[in-house]
């Protein structure tokens, strides 16, 4: 059964809770959508809208990405990533390590 996507209000709660768990209080930013006149930092409602879009876009796209099955492997068993190449922080450098 498909998971019901979260509403804006649910995402706002999740975002605030996640940030709070890291010790970040979004209320440091000005209320509403107007930017802070001193620093140009955006209002918290504008930031929340941008963060909701980020969660629905980037977080969802990355989380749902399925790596292709390695050549010669059974796709049914390759759905898990346990035998995929190890993730690399620095792909270009890794070319030298793998020579």
């Amino acid at each position, binding site marked *: 059964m498909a998971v019901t996507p979260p509403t804006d209000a649910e995402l706002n709660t999740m975002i605030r809770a996640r940030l709070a768990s890291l010790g970040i209080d979004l209320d440091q*930013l000005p209320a509403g959508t107007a930017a802070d006149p001193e620093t*140009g930092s955006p209002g918290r409602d504008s930031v929340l809208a941008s963060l909701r879009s980020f969660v629905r876009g980037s977080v969802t796209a*990355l*989380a749902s990405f399925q790596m292709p099955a390695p050549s010669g492997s059974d796709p049914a068993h390759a759905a898990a990533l346990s035998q995929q190449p190890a993730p690399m922080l*620095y792909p*270009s450098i890794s070319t030298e390590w793998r020579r």
Partner: protein
Amino acid sequence: MTTTNLPAEQTGQSVKAVNRRAFLLQTAAITAAAAAGAAAFPAAASASTWSGKTPKFGSDAYVKPRPEAIADPTELTVAEAAWMIKNGKLKPVVLVEAYLARITAYDSVYQAFNTVLGEEALAAAKAIAKKKPASPLHGIPLAIKDNYWTKGVRTTANSYLFQDFVPPYDATPVARLKAAGAIVLGKTQMGPLATTRATSPDGRITTVNAWTPGNVATDPGGSSTGTATSVASRMAASGTGTQTGGSITAPSNAQNLTGLKPTMGRVSLAGIIPLSYTRDHPGPLARDAKDAAIMLTAMAGEDSADPRTQGLPPLPDLIAAATPVFSKGKCRARRRTRIGVLPGYASTTTRQAFLAKLDGIDGFELVDVPFPDQWDLLTGNEFNNVRLPERSEPFMPYLRSDLRGFGVSVTGWLQGALLGANEFITGQRAKLLLLERVLDQVFEKCDVVVQTSPVPFDILGLPEIGFPIGFSAAGVPVGTILGGAPYEEDTLLSVVAAYQAVTDWHWKRPADPVVPAAAARALKTTADRGRLTADDVVDQMQ
């Protein structure tokens, strides 16, 4: 120290209401550590371990100047100025004075620098004049992007968070350039924390494109904007930038320069304020391929303070690679090179003319190459955003105490804090998959490949070079980008050097702005050049 001291309403750097407690605590810790000696620093953060050996530069690094350049020292390329200095025809002091004169005359319009080290540069020029030139950078005045630590000189990354930060040592690339004899003229304006085009931290536009100083709307390229404008307007001979999402190649393309983003690890990042530690690449913005080769030769090399620089192939002879080869008076390829052309690249007459010019050089072959599988997905915005936790993690103390201190750039840092570890690791797997497809499906068929965006090769850490190929109808430079295989900066330079031997785009310079004194004063104190909002920064974020 002399500085330009831009007024507070332009730099935004003296806003007092921002909570800077975390910053002051860190500064105090660094000051105390400096007083106690270098051993008090974490090993990975210390630049004191660099050996200080100056690389070898061949005779090709010295180029007899064009006649028109001899009349104006600021028109000399680095290679030409090096020839003049080596042959006793130009004194470093004269060269520094010439650049300082242009800064005095024009930087109120361009606003390329946030700190000008006039007295220090002159003193350095006088001191170095007593030594025998040992490198083509001997006595060459450079502009340094303000996210490179400079010993004893304020290093802000154009941010409230670092507005009073004075590093205790030079970033390794700065130390290497200085060891080669280069002179630091000043620190350049940049996108706040390297996120976008140069603005004040609160988004007010500062630096303009040197080609359209009266039109702030013309994109000067970000985030190494100030360096690009300073070099394009002949206020510095060459300069440094950093690239995370196009910040060397984009301003180079926008301002008729040759900018070289090397392979990840070629240049140490020790002492550079990070944006994304897997993606930040230090490199030069220069006037042509030869100058870019000289700069990168000085900047590159293993550094025990940065493990990313270790265990890599040796740096090839970049200066030889950037020296065009002629046969019977005609330029030919230094080595046979297959130039890959991606679908849709030749969509403009400028690009078509560029490809035709390359095709006419003996030894170059144009080859159609496909986009690798899932190219749009793996290089698109969502997967590109996997870099964002690298932004938030090192800045957590500031995120907890000083959100407004990030100014217009804060949203990217908060986005990074929302990306979970699962997604982050998936993104790392996807990068490796993308690299293998680029190597298998593109570089099996060609040696270099034209780029339609700098981002894919930034994701992968592969080398890229941006260079001029024409002008728009409005008189604004048009550039393009070539990408290369890992550690093949020399191949990129050899192609661009040949192209620049048969074209003259890279020799064109913008006209000097007309600056009545009163207008200049007004620009410095009251002009509102427009501003970027936080939403603009998210859209343009690098």
